[in-house]
């Protein structure tokens, strides 16, 4: 700064020059600022104008003000009319999907425009619901701002209600869309289709090849595997809470105000002869103003509040009227009343994935007179299933516009990417009601020939290990021995020291001394069945092992083991207690020697709550309890104990020192059970009173040679 010497010249001049300098600086600063901002703006503009080249797209702003005005004149061509026999395979351009390495569909939303007719009238009314649909897509994982990369394109013209848009002009507007291409890969939302007098069951609009997510399809207008059926949204439903009365006061309620006359007559007949049906209508007031939040009984005029009254019904009637699908269905579902759908040929919302037979009753229009009979034949169990299922399905798929939109997109996504498809159970079986799915569900007795693989976890007890290997190879069905060497400090003995046996044996060195290593699904286990065995379990006879394997074959999804344990609830400490030996029940078998399917090792390693695995490895204990919990939780089946054997160690060798160790051990194990039960949220183990013995066990009379003569002692 060369102003320094200037400042020191004189007081006066300093004052003046100081001011000058200040001004000077200010203007220089201002200039700099202006120049900089100019440069910045220019750069920014350059950057944004160059966007097509760099593939940068700004996400759409769903602004509602200052929309560009587009005037559509009558001479503009219209899009082609809807192709009634479209299928996914012919009308959907699958090549548009998966571009840019996406493994899910990508959805583009056209920018909003203010479309007007040449007379200045808007061609459609833009509704809150449609805005929410666009906004949901905009914020979903499927959204893309790049039309070139888009798999699905959504026009931003509101077509939800046939009464509030002009088919003529919207068809023209669709045709003006830059990527319309006869509607290919376009998604059109509609809830109320058709106009009087015919009330078509699909939106009257020239949609060409576009997919229609529509309410009120019938089986003729619905293009199977292509269109998507959505519910007619009701804004009343979103205000209904999930609190349920303790008791439902009415068997069947009908609150619909637009029941066609001939059906109404039949319902009135039922209502007049039975109190099981509460038939309600609009309340007639002298002023002629209808209060939509009130309903009155037909004959008595008793007044009820709507929608609160729906909660009082066990079943609620939704019946077709001018349109097949009625918004009242949403009110009914939200009120947790089991819907009775009376609408022939209706396509229920999301019918391709949501199983409506688990949610609603369906009565043919022809059969309305038998309504009561049908409802009464529904068993209590089914009533309960319907009741809980509908709540769950409503909350999951239908409860709001956001959910309806997302479900629609997910269904399309599953169609385009079949591997992303979720199973029936995922769509329709809430895990909190039905539990997890057993990975082994084929009812078979496993084959004997492949045999089993013995997995021995060992640390350094080489002598007993070798003894065990010698013993094991005498079991006919043993296919292979896998030694898991869990000692990182010491090398396993060299190969020439190992016993010479006629079965393959492989040693696997582990990286860390963890108990969970015994339940790792090693590639070397090539049989379905694995025998997990400790290196000191040398007392099992070949007959015992062979029989154990044969029992496992009959119950291949369970753990089959020898000594058993039991869990019991302690009423004093309010916790689970671990109980060993001499009980009349069992709920666990020790994995010191147990057969189980290899898949459970995979589950143990990859699917079991990580918390449990960590607990096991940190405490160096309870891996067997964890395994028992895991299998019991998934299969909801108890393990199977074979043969009378109760202990692996000799019962005589107990001394005082061991007893105290034993007590500590027991409290440790009890803590494990308590902990695991908490992690699973319930006690997964089940106690049973039986064990499996060979058919001829303890039989002396028959004279027929025993199949498994040497079933050991306790």
């Amino acid at each position, binding site marked *: 700064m060369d102003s320094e010497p200037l400042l020191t010249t004189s007081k006066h001049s300093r004052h003046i020059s100081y001011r000058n300098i200040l001004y000077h600086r200010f203007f220089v600063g201002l200039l700099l600022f202006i120049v900089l901002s100019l440069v910045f703006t220019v750069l920014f503009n350059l950057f944004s104008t160059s966007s097509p080249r760099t593939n940068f797209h700004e996400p759409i702003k769903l602004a509602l003000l200052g929309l560009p005005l587009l005037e559509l004149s009558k001479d503009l061509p219209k899009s082609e009319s809807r192709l009634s026999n479209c299928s996914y395979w012919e009308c959907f351009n699958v090549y548009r999907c998966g571009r840019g390495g996406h493994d899910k569909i990508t959805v583009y939303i056209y920018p909003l425009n203010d479309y007007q007719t040449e007379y200045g009238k808007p061609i459609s009314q833009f509704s809150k619901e449609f805005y929410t649909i666009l906004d949901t897509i905009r914020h979903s994982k499927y959204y893309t701002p790049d039309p070139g990369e888009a798999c699905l394109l959504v026009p931003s013209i509101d077509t939800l209600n046939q009464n509030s848009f002009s088919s003529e002009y919207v068809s023209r507007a669709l045709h003006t869309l830059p990527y319309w291409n006869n509607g290919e890969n376009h998604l059109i939302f509609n809830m109320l289709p058709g106009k*009087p007098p015919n009330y078509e069951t699909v939106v009257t609009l020239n949609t060409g090849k576009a997919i229609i997510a529509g309410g009120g399809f019938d089986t003729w207008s619905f293009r199977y595997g292509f269109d998507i059926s959505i519910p007619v949204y009701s804004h009343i439903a979103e205000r209904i809470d999930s609190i349920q*009365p303790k008791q439902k006061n009415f068997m069947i309620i009908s609150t619909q105000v637009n029941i066609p006359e001939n059906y109404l007559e039949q319902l009135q007949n039922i209502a007049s002869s039975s*109190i099981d049906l509460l038939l309600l209508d609009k309340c007639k007031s002298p002023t002629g103003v209808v209060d939509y939040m009130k309903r009155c009984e037909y004959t008595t005029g008793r007044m009820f509040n709507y929608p609160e009254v729906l909660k009082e019904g066990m079943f609620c009637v939704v019946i077709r009227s001018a349109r097949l699908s009625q918004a009242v269905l949403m009110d009914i579902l939200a009120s947790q009343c089991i819907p009775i759908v009376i609408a022939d040929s209706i396509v229920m919302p999301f019918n391709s994935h949501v199983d409506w037979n688990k949610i609603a009753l369906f009565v043919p229009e022809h059969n309305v007179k038998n309504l009561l009979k049908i409802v009464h034949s529904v068993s209590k169990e089914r009533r*309960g299933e319907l009741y809980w299922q509908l709540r769950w399905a409503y909350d999951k798929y239908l409860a709001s516009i956001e959910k309806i939109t997302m479900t629609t997109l997910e269904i399309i996504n599953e169609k385009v990417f079949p591997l992303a498809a979720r199973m029936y159970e995922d769509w329709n079986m809430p895990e909190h009601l039905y539990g997890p799915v057993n990975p082994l569900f084929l009812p*078979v007795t496993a084959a004997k020939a492949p045999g089993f693989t013995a997995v021995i976890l060992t640390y350094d007890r080489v002598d007993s290990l070798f003894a065990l290997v010698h013993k094991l190879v005498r079991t006919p069905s043993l296919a292979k021995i896998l030694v898991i060497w869990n000692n990182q400090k010491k090398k396993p003995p060299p190969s020439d020291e190992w016993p010479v046996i006629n079965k393959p044996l492989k040693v696997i060195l582990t990286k860390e001394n963890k108990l969970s290593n015994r339940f790792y699904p090693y590639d070397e286990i090539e049989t379905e069945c694995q025998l997990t065995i400790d290196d000191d379990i040398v007392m099992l006879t070949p007959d015992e092992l062979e029989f154990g394997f044969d029992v496992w074959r009959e119950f291949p999804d369970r753990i089959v083991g020898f000594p058993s344990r039991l869990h019991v609830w302690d009423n004093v400490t309010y916790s689970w207690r671990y109980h060993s030996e001499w009980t009349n029940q069992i709920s666990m078998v020790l994995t010191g020697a147990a057969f189980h399917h290899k898949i459970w090792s995979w589950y143990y390693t990859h699917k079991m709550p990580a918390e449990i695995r960590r607990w096991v490895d940190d405490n160096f204990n309870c891996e067997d309890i964890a395994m028992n919990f895991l299998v019991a939780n998934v299969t909801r*089946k108890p393990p199977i104990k074979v043969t009378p054997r109760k202990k692996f160690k000799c019962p005589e060798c107990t001394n005082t020192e061991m007893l105290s160790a034993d007590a500590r051990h027991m409290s440790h194990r009890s803590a494990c059970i308590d902990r695991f039960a908490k992690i699973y949220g319930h006690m997964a183990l089940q106690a049973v009173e039986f064990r499996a013995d060979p058919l001829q066990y303890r039989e002396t009379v028959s004279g027929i040679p025993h199949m498994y003569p040497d079933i050991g002692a306790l």
Partner: protein
Amino acid sequence: MQAKKRYVIFFVSCGALIYGFYGGFKFNSESVQSSLREQLPTFASFDDLTETQYLQRQPRLNSKPCRMETCFDFTRCGEDPKIYVYPTEGTVSQSYRKVLTVIRESRYATKDPNEACLFLPAVDTLDADHLSPEHVADVGTRLPQLPYWKNGRNHLIFNLYAGTWPDYAEEALGFDPGDAILARASASETVFREGFDVSLPLFHKEHPERGGVAPAATANLFPAPRKHLLAFKGKRYVHGIGSETRNSLWHLHDGASLVLVTTCRHGKSWKHLRDERCDEDNQEYDKFDYEQLLANSTFCLVARGRRLGSYRFLEALAAGCIPVLLSNGWRLPFDERIDWRRAVIWADERLLLQVPELVRSVPPERVLALRQQTQLLWQQYFSSIEKIVYTTIEIIFERISAYKASRHREALIWNSSPGALGILASYGDSRAQLPFTVTAPKAPLAPELLPAPLPAPAVPLISPPPTASDTYTALLYVQVTSPALHKLLANIASSEFCEKVVLVWDSERAAPSLKSLTRVAGDNREPLPVLVIDATTHYPGEGVAARWKPLWAVPTAAVFSLDGDAPLLAEELDFAFKVWQHFPERIVGYPARSHYWDEAKGAWGYSSKWGGAYSMVLPGAALVHRAILALYGASAPALRHAVQRAHNCEDILLNCLVAHLIRRPPLKLAQRRRYKAAHHRYKSSWSDPEHFIQRQSCLNTFATAWGYMPLLRSVLRFDPILFKDPVSTLRKKYRKMELVTS
């Protein structure tokens, strides 16, 4: 200072401006947006939502394709719908003859056209391809001449091949099906009449009438160690419809993990039509064996042929090779009820080159599930013509019950073991009432409808079947009173879990008038209710076949089927029930028998002297689920007649039925061998050699009727945990059981 302040103010305001311009704008617009959004109108007014119209009962519109509600006459069908098969006239192909026989001998058949709900023409409609040797030419004229045709209303027509070279049009059936339900193979999404037609699998001429090949890939190895990942071996059409897909398969072939080989050699004139790749393809083609490929690969490509369906689909299913479909728009067999997402992978003909990547990205646990499901479905619905035909009929009859009573068998029943053919559609309406899912926790009950605000319903309730509970019903079959019976009744009365005794009295003598059983001293429970049913008046002439008929009197899911003289202790009854609760789908009981193949006679033998294994547990002392007994009552007429004729073998039939159904052996308990008191006054028929021979012949009759021997062996029995252990008896819960020796 002042300058500093100025600078500060200046920069702050600059910053504020910049922020206002770039950041705040967004914020502003968001808040404006959300308020604007609230001001937007809702999409439909109340009047829009409640538009009404006077609805006329719509006359059937000819222009629209058929649906059940427009083309089917439900009034013809009652509670137990029947099917009438026209008498055979003229030539009928071998496959169609099998179809006709299977239906005629089924429980669905009726001889009276007036009580029929469904009609099956005996005119062979399977092959509508007029170039085929099996084609029957005059179908078009013969169908309308059928006496009950009425434009095909309530008729069922089977068709495997439609259309012919060169376009293979699906509509070209050679006859007008009118309102008849078409059960057709190779249906496409566009031609298929949704909810009306039934989609069939394409099956070979050699497809067995009954029985069928057992599933081949029952090993649940994880991960599946198959040699090839994806396989296809088949002919390709060089030109014409459906040829494109197969013609481009060679692009994917790598000879190791992906084996996709095709040949042009088929038909007489293949050499004229050949293209440049034919020789190379043929060479690769001959390197691989078809059966080996199926058995050794994880996925099998099921590519469309001329028509959408192919034999390959069933072949892959049978081999446990997961089908990868390359057949756009094909309606898979029985997809109305079978959830194919569990068993196949859809590929897209348009994305052929992505298929390897697609199959590679299927995770191993999904592969395991998919393969098991292929085996399950194959066994339940496809392995024989009988199963395919029954499934078709069950689907149609279920539509009837859905129409009449809004009652469907759940999707889960259809898609898991034992499948819909193993569960009567009329039995109950909830899975909780069935034996196969007891392990699933019950859905919580809906709020009770208390009687206070609601008087008794206007229509009397039919009681639905019971769900699993903590009690059982003892169902006794008694031919004579004896001390053994009195002893048994006393034991039942002291059993902990018995809820009711139903005594089926089958004797010329008057039935005893027993209303309840008194408990032993010290037992404070109410007397045990007894219902005596006189079989001679209720079920005259049925004999032993009547023993499980009075299910209406059984209020529990567990039925303890007992012979009147079974010497069971109360302890044994209770232990059996405790075990059964864990295996409700099996027969759980005491007396076991075994079957064996008699090489010398070339027939099945029946033995009561078992060694290390057994295959039957006799329901003279065994627990069975009520739903299974209901199914027994509805088993094939031929089987029931065999039992009725022999006055014997009902227990063998029940064992065969259960084994056929669940593919698991029964469970034997503890040591007891015999279940008849060894010494009572009457000469036991069990020592009678005549009786034995009869049972042997029953066994063979049943094996023929099913087309295979359904029984399965087991080597284990279940004992109480401390059974015969050398510990103090005071510790043991079941002490007396140990003393039973024979």
